């Protein structure tokens, strides 16, 4: 039995900018609203036709816990359209699209606005829980003396802030930061600093060369306070050299490390919005849809090797579709770390890995570098965690359209030990 077709009808994203730069005054809601409003406008779509809004978001700010709902209402989407925020760490944006696809396949929706949004600039500083405990003791004490006694238990350490960003990039199960998991992969697959820097350089060079092409997916924004035009991703560096990358100090393992800020993705602000529709909607769509969702899968693995998530997820989608890697023309794998992507490429072509970890007797195949991340990846463009999954789908579909490619694959690793992958198709 074949599932009903699910189409990605259109998409747009804001420029991506490193946290603390151009977009830092835009809240998550504001970023999402911009992308949604522009998407609706470009398609002249009456938002009352939407069946649901699903957004991926990792930080889920306290002031707008259901980001999707607040954003949708702010973007002028009518109140009867429900909003759902999903969280699968770095794959949240992909999860939103996958969930939309499943709703459509089940016949529960015909047209869904799905995407992802993240403002890593606006991640808060947190007080430790002990501070809350102290405060509760003080306010709850009835007698003035008891209250004074409670107040005296104050220690300056109670006020030590915990940046939510660091907490988010730390795996509570294996006790490692994301960068440390990347170092582990470097050891496991023997991937040296030069290889990693070389890959990072390629990402920048490709992204710089693709600047004009990327404008197809990027909307101009006018972020406060200056409200001056930003129309390109701010990450890609022109004239980036290997020497500059080589000079950087490892930032997760100071002594023996290989992962630097240069060969890892920066923390980033940005939003992506896609329109996902069923067969009926696609048939009446004014323009040609961007492409079709063939299959998607999520897989889990050890949290300390989360960087290999894409390999597991790719194995699953290939199993689901019966496709082989040779039949896929274009690849996007999110570049959380250069070493992590390189490790994936090694694992994919390794028969030993396939036998030991995937339960297959042969290697998955080959993902050739010249068909992978052809417009640069997250190392150059940036990785707004909740949004990247949706960005990969959009970038992949637009490049497939440019090349007339029929089949593409997008995958990313997920903090906490997961991977996600999509196979997308176009009719050439």
């Amino acid at each position, binding site marked *: 039995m074949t599932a009903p077709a699910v189409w990605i009808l259109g998409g747009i994203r804001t420029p991506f900018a490193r946290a603390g730069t151009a977009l830092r005054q835009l809240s998550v809601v*504001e970023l999402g*609203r*911009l992308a949604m*409003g*522009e998407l*609706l*406008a*470009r398609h*002249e779509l*009456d938002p009352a036709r939407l069946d649901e809004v699903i957004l991926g978001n990792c930080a889920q700010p306290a002031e707008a816990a259901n980001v999707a709902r607040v954003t949708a209402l*702010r*973007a*002028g989407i009518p109140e009867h359209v429900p909003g759902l925020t999903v969280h699968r760490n770095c794959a949240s944006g992909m999860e939103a699209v996958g969930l939309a696809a499943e709703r459509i396949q089940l016949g529960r929706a015909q047209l869904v606005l799905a995407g992802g949004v993240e403002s890593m600039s606006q991640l808060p500083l947190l007080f430790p829980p002990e501070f809350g405990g102290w405060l509760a003791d003080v306010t709850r004490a009835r007698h003035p003396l008891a209250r004074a006694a409670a107040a005296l238990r104050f220690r300056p350490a109670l006020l030590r802030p915990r940046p939510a960003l660091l907490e988010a990039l730390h795996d509570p199960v294996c006790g490692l930061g994301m960068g440390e998991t990347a170092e582990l992969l470097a050891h496991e697959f023997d991937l040296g600093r030069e290889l990693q820097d070389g890959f990072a350089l390629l990402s920048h060079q490709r992204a710089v060369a693709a600047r004009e092409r990327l404008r197809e997916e990027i909307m*101009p924004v*006018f972020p*406060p*306070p*200056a*409200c*001056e*035009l930003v129309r390109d991703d701010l990450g890609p560096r022109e004239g980036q050299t290997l020497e500059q990358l080589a000079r950087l100090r490892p930032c997760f393992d100071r002594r023996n490390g290989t992962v630097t800020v240069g060969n890892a993705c920066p923390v980033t602000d940005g939003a992506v919005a896609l329109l996902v529709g069923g067969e009926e909607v696609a048939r009446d769509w004014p323009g040609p849809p961007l492409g079709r969702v063939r299959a998607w899968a999520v897989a889990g693995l050890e949290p300390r090797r989360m960087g290999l998530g894409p390999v597991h997820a790719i194995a699953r989608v290939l199993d689901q579709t019966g496709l082989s890697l040779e039949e896929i023309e274009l690849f996007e794998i999110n570049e959380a770390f250069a070493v992590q992507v390189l490790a994936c490429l090694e694992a994919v072509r390794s028969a030993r890995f396939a036998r030991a970890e995937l339960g297959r007797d042969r290697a998955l195949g080959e993902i050739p570098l010249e068909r992978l991340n052809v417009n640069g990846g997250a190392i150059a463009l940036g990785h707004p965690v909740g949004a990247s999954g949706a960005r990969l789908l959009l970038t992949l579909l637009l490049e497939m359209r440019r090349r007339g490619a029929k089949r593409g694959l997008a995958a990313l690793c997920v903090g906490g030990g997961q991977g996600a992958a999509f196979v997308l198709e176009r009719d050439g």
Partner: protein
Amino acid sequence: MSVFRVEFPPADAPGRGEAPAGGPSGTPVRQGGGPGGIAHLVMDDPARRVNVLDEQALGDLEVALGLLEGRPDLGGLVVRSGKPGSFMTGDVEALATLTDRPQAVALVRRAQAACARLAALPFATVAAIDGTCLGAGTELALACSSRVAAQEPRTQIGLPEVLLGVIPGCGGTTRLSGLVGLSTALDLILTGRTLDARSAERAGLVERAVPGVWLIEHAHRRLAELVAPGRERGRPVAADPQGRRGDRWRPRGLRSWFMDGTPFGRGLTFARARAMTKGRTGGHYPAADAALSVLQHGFAQPIETSLRLEAEWAGDLIVGPVCRNLVRAFRLAERAREAPLPGIEDAGPVERLQVVGAGGMGAGIAELASRHGIEVRLRDTDPDALARALRAVRARVAERSGRTGTARHETEAQLARIFPGLDLAGLKRADLAIEAVVEDLDVKRRVFGELEVRMRPDAVLATNTSSLSVDDLAAGLERPQRFVGMHFFDPVHRMPLVEVVRGAKTSAAALATAVRLARRLGRTAIVVNDGPGFVVNRVLMPCLREALHLAEDGYRVADVDAAMRAFGMTRGPFEMMDELGLDVTAKLVAVLGSAFPERVAPAPQLEALVKEGLLGRKSGAGLYRTWSGRRTLDPLAARLLRPERERRPASLEALAERMTLVMVNEAAHCLAGGVVADAGTLDLALLYGAGFPPWRGGLLRHADALGLAKVEARLTALRAEKGERFRPAPLIEELAARGGTFTEPASA
């Protein structure tokens, strides 16, 4: 049928049965018509949409009071309205018609007497205020022992009499300070501002603001409190079946105790209020002085003394010209706000607006529309213009929220309604597109060509042009019937007027959509027919040109400005040029000059100044310049405008006369040419669009007050002296010949 009727709610009414259990006294209020029961004085004028305390209603009130005075056994009285959304308001109609002073004083005394009888009823009285409660309505409520108000947006309580040129005459001026304290009373009476229920509670005007559904229940509870024994300021008080223990002012805090509670502080308070009033009214509005006088001389006097003062002053003011003029201006505005328009029922609301051109006007319109819940797409091909516009909008929104305390979620929602863009994405969803690009026929035509092919066929196209002809702009369009002018004034957020311009082919539906949009934006829309300068600029420009003539004649710029300010205009003509922009003024003078060469001469001085880059306030350099706090003429402007031989005017009035007479003359041409429907519309346009003094009632009312025969004679004299531009308009000659007027007796 009577406007006031006395009802005895049955024991199980209203709705929730007995007075709430656990009432403060624990004594349930007995209801029904028996002894100790509660009566309702219900106000419901069957003939009107809102309750108005006019002469007939006053008669009904007297009858009802007679009935109540005969029932000293009653437990209490609730004064309420039987009309949703309206408690009671004063009678504006009477202000317009009363011309005889003794008659006016007698009417005021009669109303005072009725209020005094209400105050003297032998049981407690509570006003349950729900809906608009203005003027006499508030005064009626003030005569009760206590007041409760429905905490709903429809509730507005205030004494706006001073805005109509009178003072609260039914005891309001006298009673208010006893309830809210002197400072608050002065503030409310002198500004005429209205309060919502919560603010009224905070000011002490009502005892409590409660949700509308519980209003009557709380009125009953309040009645119970008033008669029950209780504690007051820590001391026990005995039960008081007569309910004499009404709400009274108590000092709250040291400041209020000093300023309102001590003779010395009160002196300071009066002095401050007097100074503020003088600054605000410029001595043109006698009502504020009258209110101050009543409060000062009536304070701490027997109530009858104060009431007599109130009535005497009110009588003077009612028959005076300022009151009549202000009432006229008020009614003109009211008419413009509510006037039915063919097709307005069918005209769709504008929910999405496309603004093209992000200059000052475009940004202003975007801010205004987003504030009123309309989704705006703001297009400009220049990203820097968009950046400036967005910064301006953000600054305006921040400034407003700082001033009015708008909640953060509201300002965020407002900003989120604006989508800037470099292209016209989303245009198909727009209900109306308004263009605010440079004043250039070709550029504008290109914009409309672009808009027309992409917009929905039922959407409306509007231009914000001030100097170009709507018909010229519509000429190239496929469907000129959906094209309309919407002339907002600069600065958009402050100017209350929009000229909605009907072109030769504009359809009723398009016109109605534009009017409806303007009204939704809180603007007063007046419909004008297409013509050079529409109406405001058409009448104003000859005046500005005349100011230049005066400068040419040797009068000093500062004197010319002072003359018009003394006349009552908010700004002098040269200040107005700076505000408008010298380039815009020059352009408008040129447009009118080519249309009416006999009346508007070219202004080479202005063009020379524009060429030198003096554009007015927007460019930071205009005719006037501020050097370290002192305002002087710009040196270049001084050279161009300062004559070789300086002349001192014999009187400022002579200067003002020349400028106002050319305006009157142009207005007569306008009226005869059918640019506007009637004299009232024209007067309103100049009141709201050009800063004409409201206390003069309007430009044409001013001409009528002078006497048209005199106007004609002066124009003829000036024509002989100064030239053809003063030639009296045929309409003036005709009216003068048959002793007619512009504004009487028509509704205008």
